[in-house]
């Protein structure tokens, strides 16, 4: 998955998601288009939102992991 994500990050062209290549295509054929989201963030702000989401998700994941899987030496301290 890391390799696949590296391909995505380094490739010069666009890699449309299936929402764009499949869902929106069928929606357009049916005369519907996606409306803007509630908080219409885009560009660098969206990048920042993904960064914050990744940080929070990763922090929660790591913290809960440490709570559930303490090392033997540390389990006494907890």
């Amino acid at each position, binding site marked *: 998955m890391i390799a696949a994500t590296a391909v995505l990050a380094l490739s010069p062209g666009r890699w449309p998601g*299936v929402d764009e290549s*499949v869902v929106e295509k069928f929606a357009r054929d049916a005369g519907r288009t996606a409306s803007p989201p509630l908080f219409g963030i885009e560009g660098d702000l969206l990048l920042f939102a993904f960064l914050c989401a990744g940080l929070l998700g*990763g922090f929660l994941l790591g913290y809960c992991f440490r709570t559930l899987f303490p090392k033997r030496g540390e389990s006494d301290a907890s």
Partner: protein
Amino acid sequence: MPVRKRRGADLARFDQKTLLRAYAAAIGVAVFLQPSSAFAMHLAEGILPLGWAGAWWVAAIPVLGTAAARLSRRSEASPLYKPFVAMIAATVFVLSCMPVPVPIVGTCSHPCGTGLAAVLLGPAMAVVVAFVALLLQALFLAHGGLSTLGADLWSMGIVGGVCGWLAWKALRRFGASMPLAAFAAGVASDWATYATTALQIALGLHGERSVGQVFRAVLIAFVPTQLPLGLLEGALSACAVAFLARRKPALLDLFATPMPVVDTREAAQ
């Protein structure tokens, strides 16, 4: 006094190490999640007609309410339950934010993680963790939508979770190893999620054509991307379950059953 001081120092060192590792995991996930121009699959705001979006919401609310009540009951019975659910919720959130490219096709999509959640927590809790992930993405990441949240919850949380759980249970009953059963659960949940999305699009947007015709067309359009991604999701689920089975096997039996059958404090030791 010296003993107390040393214990205090040990605790401080433990907390500091825990925090540092959690920060490292967070930064790793954040870098990994950096979006390029590619996003993924949830039905966006406005894709479904309002009637269909409302119908999926109405159908999702009782399932979500039942699952939330179960979360509350289980949390009272076990001190480990909430951290475990939180960890799985974070995993589902991170996985379902992660665009994975399929180079042969030139598109990308994301794993769902609800098959793994259903294996570890049961299908009801897979609904709760999927709802949390979908709500956060719809509110703050312009990914999915609030009006289509009910439909997305049905495809990813309910059908995906139940299909993954059924695959896990069926294979375990026939004596399959845990990683193999988890692989099947991941694959089944991913493919079932996208089959349900295809059905939702067909029901809401079939127009002059028959529902079956549109369903087949959408499903076939999903196949080149989702076929390999489903296998990837199966492999991820198998790795996660194999890790848990080696590191703390008690967790695999405790929380996927309807109610706790042993004292989880003992199992945590």
